[in-house]
């Protein structure tokens, strides 16, 4: 208590942020109850209390859908591929950037790499649509010039997931590399000096010094990615998908969007959200235990 009083101004500084999280993140957790009720969105707060209890009806509705396994599979595949390609990409980018010796060039490359992060998915989807348009799309027409055939990329199941992953990596590689660059900047330069004296080349220094030094950051970030395994990128998919690629593109979030939000079935949408949160918690818990067992730093 004495220490708390001594450092009370620091706690005061943290208070607004804490209040924000309590009000906007913890208190709304009580709203998860609507997953077990049949709520009308127009009845307001009173409806929250008056709505009838329906137990697991909405969960049964979700799991009994003919598309339940499809949307789960698509969600896992798309987010799995995004982790597989999108997780190492910023690490590799950060490693490469770390080797650039000219500071001005390094800063310019860093800044340019951040820019896609600030472009909204609406604009990005417009760019992707324009580039891949069968008639007049830059990429499609270029391929046509070389091969003589026009491919409808956005309507082709074989290419659609690849488009999602590629556009996701393009958009996130720069911003995600920031944390790794920050971690690399804290590495003691004496380590590199010693390695150089011992005759290590750049690749060896990266392999034996840089990567082990930032491993704790890599593990933490990977744990957070695994916790988001069921977030496959709702906005991106919604803006790019169509009935011709539903089979590979319809994810949990787009399913809930159509069945829940547009159809005013908020209780159903809440039930699926709760389902996702429970699964995500187990995934995160398992991954964290695994990380701790392997001697790495976990989230807790």
């Amino acid at each position, binding site marked *: 208590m004495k220490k708390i009083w001594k450092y009370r*101004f620091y706690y*005061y*500084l943290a208070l*607004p942020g804490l209040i924000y999280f309590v009000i906007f993140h913890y208190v709304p957790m009580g709203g998860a109850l609507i997953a077990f009720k049949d709520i*009308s*969105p*127009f*009845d*307001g707060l009173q409806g929250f209390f008056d709505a009838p209890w329906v137990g697991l009806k909405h969960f049964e*509705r979700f799991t*009994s*859908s*003919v*598309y339940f396994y499809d949307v789960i599979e698509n969600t896992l595949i798309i987010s799995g591929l995004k982790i597989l390609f999108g997780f190492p990409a910023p690490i590799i980018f950060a490693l490469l950037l770390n080797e650039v010796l000219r500071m001005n060039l390094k800063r310019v490359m860093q800044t340019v790499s951040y820019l896609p992060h600030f472009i909204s998915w*609406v604009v990005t*989807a*417009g760019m992707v*649509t*324009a580039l891949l*348009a*069968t*008639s*007049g799309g830059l990429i499609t027409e270029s391929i046509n010039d070389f091969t003589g055939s*026009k491919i*409808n990329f*956005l*309507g082709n199941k074989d290419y659609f997931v690849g488009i999602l992953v590629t556009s996701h990596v393009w958009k996130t590689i720069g911003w995600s590399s920031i944390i790794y660059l920050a971690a690399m900047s804290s590495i003691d330069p004496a380590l590199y000096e010693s390695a150089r004296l011992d005759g290590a080349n750049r690749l060896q220094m990266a392999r034996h010094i840089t990567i082990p030094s930032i491993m704790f950051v890599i593990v933490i970030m990977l744990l957070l990615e695994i916790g988001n395994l069921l977030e496959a990128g709702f906005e991106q998919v919604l*803006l*790019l*998908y*169509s*009935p*011709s*690629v*539903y*089979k590979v593109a*319809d994810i949990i979030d787009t399913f809930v*969007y*159509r*069945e829940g*939000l*547009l*159809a*005013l079935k*908020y209780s159903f949408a809440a039930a699926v959200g709760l389902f996702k949160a429970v699964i995500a918690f187990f995934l995160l818990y398992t991954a964290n235990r695994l990380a701790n067992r392997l001697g790495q730093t976990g989230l807790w």
Partner: protein
Amino acid sequence: MKLLYIIFSSVIIFMFSTVVKADEHDFVIFNNSGLLQFDGGGSDPAVLQRVSDHVAKLSGVRPMVIVPSLQDTTEQLNLLLAGSNPPDLFQADWDVYKSTLMPLNDLLKEHGQALLGSIPDTSWQYMTDADGNIMGVPRTAATSPYMTWVRQDILDEAGLDLPKTVEDLTAYMAAAQKINPDFKAGTRAWSTNKWEEPAFGFAAGFTGAMSYNAAFIDPSDGRAKPLPLADGIKDYLHFMNDWHNKGYWYPDNWSKFDESEVFRTCNIAMWSGWYSRITIIVPKVVSACPGMEYVRAPIMGPKGWIATTRPSGTSAYVINKKADNPEAIMKYLNWIWNDKSMEGYATGVNGIEGEHWSYEKKGFPAIINTKDKSDTKYVGDFGLPNFPYEGNMQPNDSLWATHFNYLGSGLTNLSDSHHPIDLFMAWDKGRLADETPSLGDVHRMIAENFTAFYTGERSIDEYDAFLAELDDAGMQDWIDAMTRQMQESWNN
């Protein structure tokens, strides 16, 4: 440290104590009418304020308008309605939002006489529930928006007459591609992630039946059944697939594309989709395609007209039951859609008379001179389109003249399209969804598989297997629910 704390606390206190003066307004409109879909930039705030003052002076009431900011206005509307400050007036299917709406019978009687005079009686019957409550002001009437459009310049070059049958249309596409192999036929299967648009354009010609809900009554059991079960459906799918194999369809029809950019390529030889792509987009891009001219082509299939009339349905301007000032809302609607003067509608859509627009010819219909919205800096926030009323205001503007002329003539010409069996029936879609919990799955299955049949990804030989899959997904529940509603509708 103490100084930092004091400064930080002062900033926080200042932020919380700052009082934002609310605009003085009588009610709030969420303008999801579709009028503002092409105007992403919004009105200049100063101009908007002046137009607001002008509207208040003329109408006697002052609305505040929320302009849709999300691509999907339904999602934004639902979020607003669930919030603490829901809009008072918005556009919606009244049967879906019924629990949140105010009946309008008394309001119309007291404050809506001009409004009652300006909207056809037949349109009001779609707004009336089983208890006789009028739940909204009709947004539209029965229309024929899915006609086939071909290019006069291509007809002239190929030496062909206007196609009248499906065979003529196929010959037209063959001739078009002889002139330019890049000429394609456009439609859109993706627009609402539904399957209806190509089917509304062609299916009835092969099946004699079409609707998004009950397409026909099966004489064998008297049940109301959807299009996938209609006799002749495989002929329709074969036609669509045949065109795909011949390369007539624009490949992106079945995925996402930018309509303006596609028309700008000048390669759309035929369009079978929502009419406003021809009446609004084409005039804007025609300068890039000299000579390009689209003409409406009513086409007959083996079982009748290929295009299907779109019922007016339950789309309406509705008043929230929580509205504090419903009388003001009705006065505003009465002014906007006045049966004696276009002043209200023209002001709402275009701005201040004399400054943003002027009369070329007063009366009913009126012809008005408008300025470009980039010059006036007012995009039409207070405008509420209402069909067929809006056809009475014809801009003296080449970019919009085509659209408004078509509203007055072509769109309401129902003589050359198939009339669905539910043309005069208002479906209670909320009840259909409640009685068919897997309705979303059924619609997705139809959308996905129809597209697969069109493109040949799935063989039409597997159609019976597809019907079995629809049954597993809950189609029979849907049929039962539709049959119940149709029978109740006939009994009433």
